[in-house]
């Protein structure tokens, strides 16, 4: 998203339309990344209920992963999952592992 100059942003920091948080990618704040173990997941969707950032992707009633553009890595989903299906992995380690696979 291109950031607007002072002449173009609404006065006083007001937000004039709904849903604008969608344009604000908060995924970069993350230190720990939730990673799903599909074998353990029972699709109970408790993670979806708890996630404060609507970052659990659900399709046809099934847990399908995370919206990493918005997931801040708070770890609530991992803590609340009754089946220990979500592991929080340090982003730096995760990236290093990915690099290693290449």
């Amino acid at each position, binding site marked *: 998203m291109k950031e607007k100059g*002072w002449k173009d942003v609404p*006065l006083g*920091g007001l937000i004039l339309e709904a849903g604008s948080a969608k344009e604000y990618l908060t995924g970069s704040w993350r230190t720990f990344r939730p990673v799903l173990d599909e074998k353990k997941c029972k699709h109970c969707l408790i993670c979806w209920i708890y996630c404060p950032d609507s970052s659990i992707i659900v399709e046809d009633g099934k847990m399908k992963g995370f919206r990493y553009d918005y997931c801040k890595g708070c770890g609530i989903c991992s803590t609340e999952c009754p089946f220990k299906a979500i592991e929080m992995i340090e982003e730096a380690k995760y990236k290093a592992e990915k690099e290693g696979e290449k």
Partner: protein
Amino acid sequence: METIKAMTGDEIAAETIRQINPDVMAAYPITPQTEIVQIFSEFVANGLVDTEMVRVESEHSAMSACVGAASAGARAMTATSANGLALMWEIVYIAASLRLPIVMPVVNRALSGPINIHCDHSDSMGARDSGWIQLYSENCQEIYDNLIQAVRIAEDKSVLLPVMVTFDGFIISHGTERVKILEDEQVRKFIGKYNPRYPLLDIDNPVTYGPLDLFDYYFEHKRQQVEAMKNALDVIKKIGGEYTQLSGRSYELIEEFGSPDADLVVIAAGSTAGTVKGAIEELKEEGINAKLLKIRAFRPFPQDEIKQSLRKVAVVAVMDRSASFGAVGGPIFLEVRSALLDEERRIPVVNYIYGLGGRNIGIEDIKKVFQDLIQIRKTGKVKNLVNYLGVRE
């Protein structure tokens, strides 16, 4: 038809708020502002206004209620003094940054401690960087006129900033003076109906007030506030002109008094401007030509008008009724001096800190200042850049 009444500063402030008839008044009493709230409460109780009076438990709540009301789309007002202003501090900044056109009389009183209830400008001067427009009133008539104009200035689409209308505690707030009062209808027609830009109560057009604003946009919003203050310079002049049409009394960013070609100038804000006028009249009889430059608007600071007014003068004294501890001088002095810095001709400017905690200042004191200026004009030498007028050594 205007009527003429004898009223104290607080009485006329309450009467003006009655004529403005704001949607919401949220206020907490504090000396020497108390009578404004007390008298206005009577107006509410007697059904003379449509105002929703919110009796809050502190000034922090008073300003918070005003912010809530103004965001909802109401014309909101409060009034305070000294420690009350200090207590509402956090929300004072929020009101300005949310661009809410709240109007607030500030009855100038010394900030504690040691505890003191009398006049100085330490309260409003401390708020000079809060983003509020500040109009200083010399007397009761100016309280009336400034408050009415403040509503229009605050609500102007190119401004949208809150306005403080200040006047000196006890000296003016409790001093009875002659005031010319317009008819209610004239005032209401002049201020017009308030059309809020983004009222929260407009549920068909929902907006969010006060979201998080970090390093990526906060700076842009501050830049907008800078621009609004700049716009306010013209708006204050424009509305002053319209008000002159209505009342016959003229209002600019600054006021000059005395011989236009006098080269000795004293700069003052608030009731001391009246004392300076008295001194100038006496000096005239003694054959000395002198001039007053009264600061009406301190925020925005009328730099160009001040430069223009001082271009041909020999020497300037700035009267500050507050100290800026650790700074080179008082707040008005610092800004006047910096405004004159890029002038080709160097004009000596000296500072007099005076009247702290209500220490009296009279015509004789001002004449002494003019005598100092005469010395500087003669010798070209400034002995003391900052002077403490009326303090015991």
